[in-house]
């Protein structure tokens, strides 16, 4: 045991000396390992970062809610096929509301971009959401200050508004917006609440929005609009069953014949998740293939360099054997050397991936799991041991006297 320990320490220090003596060669040899480790770690860093932010964003979409729309979230056919579909209307929403037994809440909603102003401050391109009266039950919106729209305000199509954080900040900064009047397009609205901060979803700020009653929006900005109907499943209802029921209700309400295709789409969060996972699986696979090939090439490079090293150091091996080094001790010396080269390559690779991650972080969220960093260094060392095996065995098998004679 003690012998093993000292052998290993000795082997590591020999290896280190050999690496220092051949710095350029070792660096070149390790390039494949560096690139391989960097590719894998960088890929994982990017995908892990995207995953974390995507999951966070998805959590803003209710898990038990489906969304009926004219255009599906994920288009599988030609855009023009969907464009010929009739809009989703209040009549469709009412049909669902009336007939569905599995829905707990049904909310039609619509959004439009309008300028919003207070006094002389004008914000262009604010999302104006016209919400149905059960909006709070299907969507994750909570007022932070003030309150949400009330039933009477919905029914009477009042000119009241709940504004997002960003809108509040930009129009009022530190002042209290509640009770103030703002203008949306040409119409005046009284502010009754400010929403909690929500962050961004797929690159869009969810705080740059204002919510008004759906009826008010239609009254002020036109009735011919394409609605999104959010339907929340009742407690314990499976989304597949809800979708089946909704399909039946909508086919009747939209007067589709038995042979007609559905002219609406029912979307849910998991669809996005599935598509996303498919996408990232591709990125992962590409990363692992590129990384794997680099590691393979790197490993062969290491094998080559170790063979050269064994040949160059045949005399040294002879001396060591003459002084009593056993085969296992020589084998270990060279295995540790090639593991060390690769581990150093791995460390450099992880370091470069970190740098790359920091640069990419300006556009995409990245996060490097520590387990991946450590794991890939360990894997690089394993590659070193694997590809070092043949050269090391060659060194260990050398006959002492033959090795000593080589100068």
């Amino acid at each position, binding site marked *: 045991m003690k*012998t093993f320990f000292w052998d290993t320490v000795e082997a590591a220090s020999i290896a280190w000396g050999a690496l220092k003596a051949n710095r350029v060669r070792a660096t070149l040899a390790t390039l494949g390992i560096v690139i391989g480790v960097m590719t894998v770690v960088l890929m994982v860093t990017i995908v892990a970062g995207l995953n974390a932010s995507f999951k966070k964003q998805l959590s803003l979409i209710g898990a038990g809610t489906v969304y009926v729309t004219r255009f599906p979230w994920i288009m599988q056919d030609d855009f023009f096929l969907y464009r010929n579909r009739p809009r989703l209307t209040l009549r469709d929403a009412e049909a669902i509301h009336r007939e569905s037994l599995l829905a707990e809440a049904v909310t039609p909603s619509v959004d439009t971009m309008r300028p919003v102003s207070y006094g002389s401050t004008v914000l262009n391109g604010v999302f104006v959401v016209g919400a149905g009266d059960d909006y709070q039950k299907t969507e994750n919106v909570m007022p932070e200050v003030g309150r949400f729209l009330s039933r009477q305000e919905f029914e009477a199509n009042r000119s009241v508004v709940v504004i997002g954080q960003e809108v509040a900040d930009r129009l009022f900064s530190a002042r209290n917006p509640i009770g103030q009047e703002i203008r949306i397009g040409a119409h005046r609205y009284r502010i009754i609440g400010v929403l909690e901060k929500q962050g961004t979803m797929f690159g869009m700020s969810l705080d740059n929005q204002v919510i008004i009653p759906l009826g008010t929006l239609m009254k002020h900005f036109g009735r011919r609009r394409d609605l999104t109907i959010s339907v929340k499943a009742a407690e314990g209802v499976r989304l597949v069953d809800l979708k089946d029921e909704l399909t039946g209700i909508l086919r009747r309400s939209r007067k589709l014949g038995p042979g007609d295709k559905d002219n609406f789409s029912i979307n849910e969060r998991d669809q996005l998740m599935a598509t996303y996972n498919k996408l990232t699986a591709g990125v992962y696979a590409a990363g692992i293939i590129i990384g794997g090939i680099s590691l393979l090439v790197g490993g062969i490079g290491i094998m080559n360099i170790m063979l050269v090293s064994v040949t160059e150091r045949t*005399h040294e091996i002879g001396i060591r054997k003459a*002084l*009593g*080094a*056993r*085969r*296992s001790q020589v084998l270990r010396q060279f295995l540790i050397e090639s593991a060390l080269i690769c581990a150093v390559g791995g460390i450099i690779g992880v370091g470069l991936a970190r740098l790359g991650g920091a640069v990419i972080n300006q556009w995409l969220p990245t996060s490097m799991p520590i387990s991946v960093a450590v794991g890939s260094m360990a894997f690089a060392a394993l590659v070193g041991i694997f590809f070092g095996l043949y050269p090391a065995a060659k060194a260990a098998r050398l006959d*002492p006297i033959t090795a000593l004679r080589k100068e």
Partner: protein
Amino acid sequence: MDRDGELIRLVDLHKVYKVGEIEVPALRGIALTVQRGEYMAIMGPSGSGKSTLMNLIGCLDTSTHGEYWLSGVNVSTMDDNELARIRNREIGFVFQTFNLLPRANALHNVELPLIYAGMGLADRKARAREALTAVGLGDRMHHKPAELSGGQRQRVAIARALVNRPSLILADEPTGNLDSATGEEILQMFDELHRRGNTLVVVTHEESVAARAHRVVRLLDGQVVSDIMNGHPPQPAVDIHAL
């Protein structure tokens, strides 16, 4: 272990080198016994088999036929690992070309046998320092071979040969690469080692070197042709560590 009596016994030792299809007989039936404490020179013209015999006695190579007993153990039947152990514990080599590791300093070179013996850091540093000091290189421990003179290098090699307290010191043309004054220093060191009870076997082609030994074995064509005492009788073996 018994420090008196027989250290080496060679029985009808043969070595045949195979070069392609051709067989080159290098040793042809060597029979030799060496007592502990002896100082023996092996002489003979070039190609007579001196180095081959050295390598066999040093367990660097194995014989084709015959027996080799070292300290009462039959070495001819040993496997690779056992031979490595014998080289490590029982034999100290001094080579004509020194065979030091060029990248390692003197201290590390002397530590090597102790490392392969599995000795811990503190112990082996102390032992290696002691050995270097004993050969007069206490102030050169951190010099690399390239920074040392030929004589100093050979003294490092001697320190390395002695550090594991072997039963046998084997030297192949130890003065061959040294000028005569430096060679004389090394030979004086050998005299001293012998006086202290070490067993030495030295291969040489120089009569002046052989004259220092008390026994001279001459080889010709792989056979012992003469084995004579140099006048003074074999000294009684003394345990060097008792001194």
